[in-house]
Each structure stands twice: as C-alpha cells, then as structure tokens.
C-alpha cells in the first residue's frame, strides 16, 4: 500500500460527536504542532447544536505558513460512526484513517491506510469513572498522533500541566490517557505513518489565538468601558473576551470595583441603545453581534449616524440570509453594514484579516468613532472570529494616546459665545460635542433623530436638512483619509490585471498568489481594509484593466460597493465568489482565475 509522505505539510481532520469533549483535545493537538514550531490553522466545523450531532475539527499544518483551508484530507481521525461514510469518502488516496476499532469496521476503500485502535476498550480497562472512560478517548488519539507523527510527547505533557494548573489532581489521569494512545501506537504502528512533524522555528514571533479573543482584548486596550451585547453565534466569544480580560486587568485595587460595565442586554436593539447611550455620555462603548443583530440594530445605527454619536460595533459575519447558517462563515454583510438603516446613511467599516489586525482595528475603531462621531463597524467573520489562527504577536506602544475627538471642556465652553453642536467650524464636516454635565450654562443641547439645524434645534426647513446631509457626506470624505489604507502585495504595479480581496480571505490569497506566480501569471493584488475607500484604492482600480474581486458571498457585495461608490464600469470587475459556508481555498481562487482567463465559463461557486 502506498502512503502519503510529507513533512510538516498536511491536513488532518477530526470527526467527533458534538458535546463529547473532543474540542479541547483537538485544540491541544493543534497547539502541540504549533509549539513544535510549525504554523497551524485549526478550524472548528460545528453544528448549531449542543450535544449529539456530528462535528469536525480540521487542522492544516504548513511550514510555509499557508493557513487557508485546503481541500483533501491526509489524516482522518474518525471518532463518529454517524459520519464514517462522509469522512472516509473525503480522505485522499493513500491517506490515513484512524478509528476506534472496539467495534471493527470495513470501510470499502482499498486505497487508504487504516490504523485501528480500540480506544473504548482501552479506556474501559484503565478508567472506572464512566465520564472519564468517554472523555479520555479524545486524549487517547492525541497520544496516538504524537507517536505516529514522531512528535515530542513532552510538549503534550506540558500542555496538560498548563491546562490543569491549580487542579493538579487532574494531571495524572490526563497524562495516563495520553499515554494509552501513545504506547499503543509505539507498539503497533512504529514507523508506519510517513507523514511527520519535525521541529521547526516558523512560529517564532507568532501566537495562536482567535479574532474574537483578540478583538475583545483590543477593546480593553482601546479604553472601552461599556460592553452591551446579546448572545449570538459567532460573536459571543468577542464580548466574553472583553469580560475575561477586563476582570483580569480592570479591577480597582483597594475597592475591588470594576472599571467597566458588562451588560447582557435583552436583545440586540437594547445592546445598541446602551452602546449609543454610553458613548453619548463620553464612555467608550461597543457591542458585538452578527448579521441578524445588525438587522435589528439598524434603526439605532441610523440614529447614531444622524445624531453623530460615536459607536463601535463588531459584526462577526456568519452564513446568511435570515437565520442562515449560524455556525458557518461568510462575508455577506458588506452592504447591510455599509448602508445600515433607512434614509441616506453610510458607515465606516474596518475589515481585519487576522487576529493581530483584529486587536489593532479594535483599538483604532474607538479612535475613529470618537474622531468622526459616527458608527464604526468592524467586520470579522466566523472563520476569523472563532477559529484559532497562527498570527503575529500583539504589539502595544505605551506612548499611544486615545484620540477622543472634538469634545469641548468647561474651559473651552467659557471661551465660546454660542455653542453649536452641529456647526462645521473646521471645514472637515466634523462638529464639536459636549458631554452632559460639563458646564452649568453652556453646551447643553438636544440629541435627536429628527431633522435639526446647526444648534441641534428641530427644524422642518428642508434646505437646512439638506445642508446637514451634505455636511455628513463631507465628514465621510474626511473619514476616507483617516481609515487604514489598503495593503499591496507588490511594491510597484506590474500587471494590467489586479486582484482585490479583504478580510479572512488573506491567508488563502497569499498561497493563491504564490501558485499563480509559479504558473507565470503576474497579477497585482490589493487588500482592502476599510470603507470609505481611500485614494489608493481608487488609484489601484484606475491603474488596472481587469480586476478580480474575491469575496465570500453570492452577490459580489464588495464589487457592488466599489461600483456604487466609484462609478466603476461593471465589465472591468470580475467576481470570484465562494459562499458554501467553508472558508475559501487557494485552489478555488486559482481555478476561478484560470477559468476566466482561459475563457471557460466559471460555475457560480465551485
């Protein structure tokens, strides 16, 4: 039998039953590879369910640092008989199948290598507690993998010790479980597997974390004090990250009181209302949600836009429309975020592409919201938000200052004859604001969603209202010079063709560009990081005759946004789309581009 042979380059997929405790063991496997110095990209493919349904965990191990999803499974750890058929079918020829042979099976494929380990039987022999018998099967296969991949077992022992720090009693049975699989494999599969993990140094300067965790931490560093939120997959862990880090770093010494308020609202409407109320009153506040929440928040987003209240919203996108695929990924809220709410509204979007950038953009979102006095929406997606990524270490410069924007103090107000909340004093479309309670006689005004004049007074004068809307447009123009610039893959444009992409697509795009390069296809690439689009974006579009726009949605929403905002002719912009709920792959991108260039009609999705 032939076997797949590779070092530090493979995809392993775990098939488990949801709620069986497999997630932490799978995570531990990935972390062990990361600690061996090889970048990994674990992806949890889970059902919208708590217990009993199939769930998968896919880990790509790649020394070159390609972290995008890759089709084809090299090693399948099939622990769920419910999904055997599917799991065996997607295993590559000459791949490895590991299953619990306490109940023997024939899989009907003679082109794969089957590793049998009677995990249930072994755990029943070794443990008496029924819960442990079930749970420790998971660590058992981690031990087996450590052996067959020739990894350093001590890495896993350290990981167990770290995980159970403070609960030392649990270390021994966990190590025992790891050894059950490890020892069994040493005895039965010595030199069997030809896929290996060899220690490397490619994770120097990297950390393993998720975008949601990073963004929540960024909110702490960015000075957010109020988080109002409503639970919704896949954004929940972002709010929880803020709470976790706040409890660690934001408790007053002496009083034990919190320098933050963490409020689980009754729904997304209230979450957004609280966020606006707190920002209005001078605290930095945010909410985190996903598409359905953005729909609910839209009325309030329009109020914050029109009344010019700074607001930060994280939209961790999931598969839509409607309730859609809550546990799958998409980039399909571009338009509903950019133009959220009725009437003429536009919002600042920040689009990070990895957890490090989630941290940075979370910090930046508060500065931009305060500076521009408008909602800032940070767009993540499920893949970026919930999965762990091998990402650059977080950085912070202690000389960084918060930009609280144009806020008048009591002394400022003393020097002003008449305060006008919506006067464009500086000509950049951004007015000055006051916090409630600043001055006994000056600076009070009415914040309202109704049409208003420069002094915040209600007006039904249509000309006045039109002037106000025009100034808001000017402010949006100012925003385009303040938001993060795009990132270019090349120092100088070298092709008449360009690729535009954004967000979590980045990891697959780096690989795709290398593949295209090997095929001698030179295409310039630009990663958009924000809306409104700044000058560099328009220049890149101007300088290329043909542009591929890669997005993870059905309708080419970024393409629509570019056409609408820049009056770009549609013929020039070719969509490369993926919307099956799985993160886009490099292969998908290169196939689509090649198909287009060779004149073959590309299918909608695959």
């Amino acid at each position: 039998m032939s076997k797949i042979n590779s070092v530090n380059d493979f995809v392993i997929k775990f098939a488990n039953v949801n709620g069986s405790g497999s997630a932490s063991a799978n995570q531990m496997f990935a972390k062990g590879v990361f600690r061996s110095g090889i970048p990994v990209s674990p992806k949890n493919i889970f059902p919208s369910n708590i217990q009993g349904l199939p769930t998968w965990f896919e880990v790509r191990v790649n020394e070159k640092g390609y972290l995008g999803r890759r089709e084809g499974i090299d090693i399948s750890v099939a622990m769920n008989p419910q999904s055997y058929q599917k799991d065996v079918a997607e295993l590559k020829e000459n791949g490895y199948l590991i299953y619990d042979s306490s109940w023997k099976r024939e899989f009907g494929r003679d082109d794969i290598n089957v590793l049998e380990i009677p995990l249930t039987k072994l755990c029943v022999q070794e443990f008496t507690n029924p819960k442990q018998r079930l749970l420790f099967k998971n660590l058992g296969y981690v031990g087996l993998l450590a052996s067959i991949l020739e990894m350093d077992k001590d890495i896993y022992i350290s990981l167990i010790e770290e995980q159970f720090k403070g609960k030392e009693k649990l270390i021994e049975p966990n190590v025992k479980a790891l050894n059950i699989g490890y020892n069994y494999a040493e005895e039965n599969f010595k030199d069997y597997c030809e896929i290996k993990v060899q220690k490397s140094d490619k994770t120097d300067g990297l950390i393993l974390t998720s975008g949601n965790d990073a963004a929540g931490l960024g909110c702490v560093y960015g000075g957010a004090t109020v988080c109002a939120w409503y639970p919704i997959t896949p954004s929940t862990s972002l709010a929880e990250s803020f709470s976790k880090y706040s409890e660690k770093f934001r408790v007053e010494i002496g009083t034990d009181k919190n320098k933050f308020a963490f409020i689980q609202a009754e729904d997304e409407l209230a979450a957004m209302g609280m966020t606006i109320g707190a920002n209005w009153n001078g605290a930095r506040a945010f909410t985190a949600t996903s598409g359905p929440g953005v729909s609910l928040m839209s009325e309030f987003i329009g109020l914050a836009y029109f009344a010019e209240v700074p607001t930060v919203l994280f939209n961790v996108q999931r598969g839509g429309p409607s309730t859609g695929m809550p546990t799958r990924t998409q980039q399909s809220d571009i338009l509903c975020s950019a133009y959220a709410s009725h009437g003429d509204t536009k919002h600042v979007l920040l689009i990070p592409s990895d957890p490090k950038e989630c941290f940075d953009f979370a910090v930046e979102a508060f500065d931009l919201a305060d500076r521009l006095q408008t909602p800032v929406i940070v767009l993540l997606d499920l893949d970026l938000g919930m999965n762990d990524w091998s990402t650059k270490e977080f950085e912070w410069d202690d000389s960084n200052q918060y930009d609280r924007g144009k806020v008048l103090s009591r002394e400022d107000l003393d020097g002003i004859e008449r305060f006008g909340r919506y006067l464009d004093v500086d000509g950049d479309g951004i007015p000055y604001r006051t916090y409630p309670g600043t001055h006994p006689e000056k600076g009070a005004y009415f914040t309202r969603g109704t049409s208003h004049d420069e002094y915040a007074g209600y007006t039904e004068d249509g000309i006045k209202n039109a002037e106000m809307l025009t100034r808001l447009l000017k402010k949006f123009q100012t925003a385009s010079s303040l938001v993060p610039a795009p990132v270019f893959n090349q120092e100088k444009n070298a092709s008449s063709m360009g690729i535009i992409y954004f967000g979590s697509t980045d990891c697959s795009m780096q690989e795709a560009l290398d593949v295209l390069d090997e095929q001698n296809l030179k295409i310039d690439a630009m990663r958009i990081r924000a809306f409104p689009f700044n000058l560099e974006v328009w220049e890149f579009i101007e300088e290329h005759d043909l542009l591929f726009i890669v997005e993870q949605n059905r309708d080419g929403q970024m393409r629509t946004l570019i056409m609408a905002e820049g009056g770009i002719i549609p013929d020039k912009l070719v969509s490369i789309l993926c919307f099956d709920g799985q993160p886009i792959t490099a292969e998908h991108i290169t196939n689509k581009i090649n198909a287009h260039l060779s004149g073959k009609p590309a299918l909608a999705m695959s």
Partner: protein
Amino acid sequence: MTYIVKPKNHHPLLEKNKLGLTRRDYEGAVSTLCAGCGHDSVSSAIVEACFQLSIESYKVAKLSGIGCSSKAPAYFLNQSHGFNSVHGRMPSIATGAAMANHELTYLGISGDGDTASIGVGQFVHCARRQLNMTYIVENNGTYGLTKGQFSATNDLESKSKYGDDNLFPSIDLPTMAIQLGASFVARSFSGDREQLVPLLKAALSHKGFSFLDIISPCVTFNNHKTSTKSYDYIREHNDALSKPDFVPLGQEIVTEYPMGSSIEVPLHDGSLLALEKLSQDYDPADKIQAIQNIQESQRDGKVLTGLLYADPKAKDLKEILNVSDKPLNTMGKNDLCPGAEKLEGINSGLR
C-alpha cells in the same frame, strides 16, 4: 419636536432656591403641545420639583423616545442635555448613559405607546436591572401624534373619540413595575399638582428605578365622555392612597408630622418622604399589598394614586455590577490600558 424659545426676563422679586435660582431657570422652551394637554402640567410639576430640590439642571440628563410625551423634555430644564431617541428605546439609551456616568440624574419621559407597546421589552428589563433613574410615563391612553389610535393602557371596552370599542384589556404599568422589581412605584394625575410635586421630588431623590405612571389626559383625542383617561373621569374616580409630602434632608420633620398620622419613607440621600394616610393602613414596603390595592381599586372602577411601593434600600444597577465610583467617562488611558508589559504576558500565554 417643535419648540419656541422663551424670552428670558426675570422679575427681580421671584422666589429663589438654595442655588439662588428661580423657577424660570428650570423652564424650557414654550410648549407646542395642544392647549390643556396634561403633559404640560407634568412639565410644570417637574420644574417645580427640581426648583424645590435645588437640582443643578446641567447635572440632569433628560431622555425620551418618540411621541407627544417624548417631546416634553424640550419644555423643561433648558440647561440639561436631552436625548430624544427612537420609539420605545429610551430605557437602553438611559442604561448606557448611566453606566458611563452614575453621577448625573437621569430623567426619562415616555408615554403609554412608547412604554406599554413598542418599548415594553426595554421598560421591563430596565426596571428589572434597577437602573438608577426616574422613569415617567405620561399616560393618556392614546396615540396622539398619529391622531387617536388606542394604546395598550386603554381599558377594555372604553371608546375612542370616534366611538370604536377597545377590544383588549389594558396593561397596568405600576403593577408590572412592582412585579419587575422597581424599587419606587407611584401613580399620580397630571391635574393633581399637590400630589404630583412631592412624588416627583421623592422619585428624583430615590436611588434605583423610580417609576411614575402619571395619568395625563389628551385634550384632543381622549378627553371625551366615554374615556377612562379623561380629566372628568380621573377627577371623579381618583382614589388617592395617601397624601404625600416630601421633606428634604436637614429639614425638621418631627413637629410637622406627628406620629400616627404619617409614615415616613427615608430616601437614599437621607431625606424623607412623608405619607399622610387617608383611609387605610398602607405600608409602601409591602409589594403584595400594593398589587392587591391596585387591583381592588381597578375592580371598583377607581384609579389608585399615590406612592404604591418603595424599597429605599434596594441596590441599583451600578452596585449590582460593582462598577467603580469614579465615573467611567472620566477614566483615561492610565486607568484603562493594561500597557505593553501585560500584553507581553498575554503573548506568552498564547504561544
């Protein structure tokens, strides 16, 4: 929200409060509500209560939703910041604002449509969370701005101005508020200034969620013979529970209110709300009795007014969440940012 700026000429002999301010200093713009609207009486009572309490207007935030009632904040306390938000969502704006700075006084003005229908969810949770604010419903039993539709506080089978029957039972907001955990619940009538002003003063001084349901007849759409929210109906059926008086901190109370004729409710700042009992033994600390009394009055076709329930010791949201005494909106980078060294520690934990 229409308004007309009021000329600011003070008579030199106007009475002044502890801050040296006159009642005029607590006024707002000229109301554009219909002449005779109960809401204007409420605004005037708010001016009086704030004047008497010597409240600093700029330390008050006035919040509202949408509707006739929600226009009212323009008509009092000119020096306060106001936030006229979206329909039924004032409570969430107030919650966020109060978390940002617990040192201001939060005064929310809502209506029966804004609270009992579109905003019922936010009202429920705001009360439940014990937000430290005064929440007033100017309850006229109708949708005024959209010209006379029924609201959820209309009594079953009461008639609209156009003669239509109301087919659904009414929501009693004070009962709800008590059940939800509001720590100060009162009902009054916009036309009963003698009762309303002390209740407002007490509500504003109470720490926690103070709820006031003020029957405030709509002269245009709901002041006809068959309405149970009309001036005439309320005057005839007002079943005042007690005659309240509010005694600010430091004022001698013993001689004025001999034992046996009044019950004194201490408020968080040390001041007292004295209730003069009219007919029954009424203990505003008894939730169950409060609800029972409301329902008995309702059964008898009466509207029970007065302080229905108060728990002066209840914790408010800030205490429940253990939020710092230093207002969050005054904290800067030094208070909030853990810094580079801590971040390096976090990085180490993620390798």
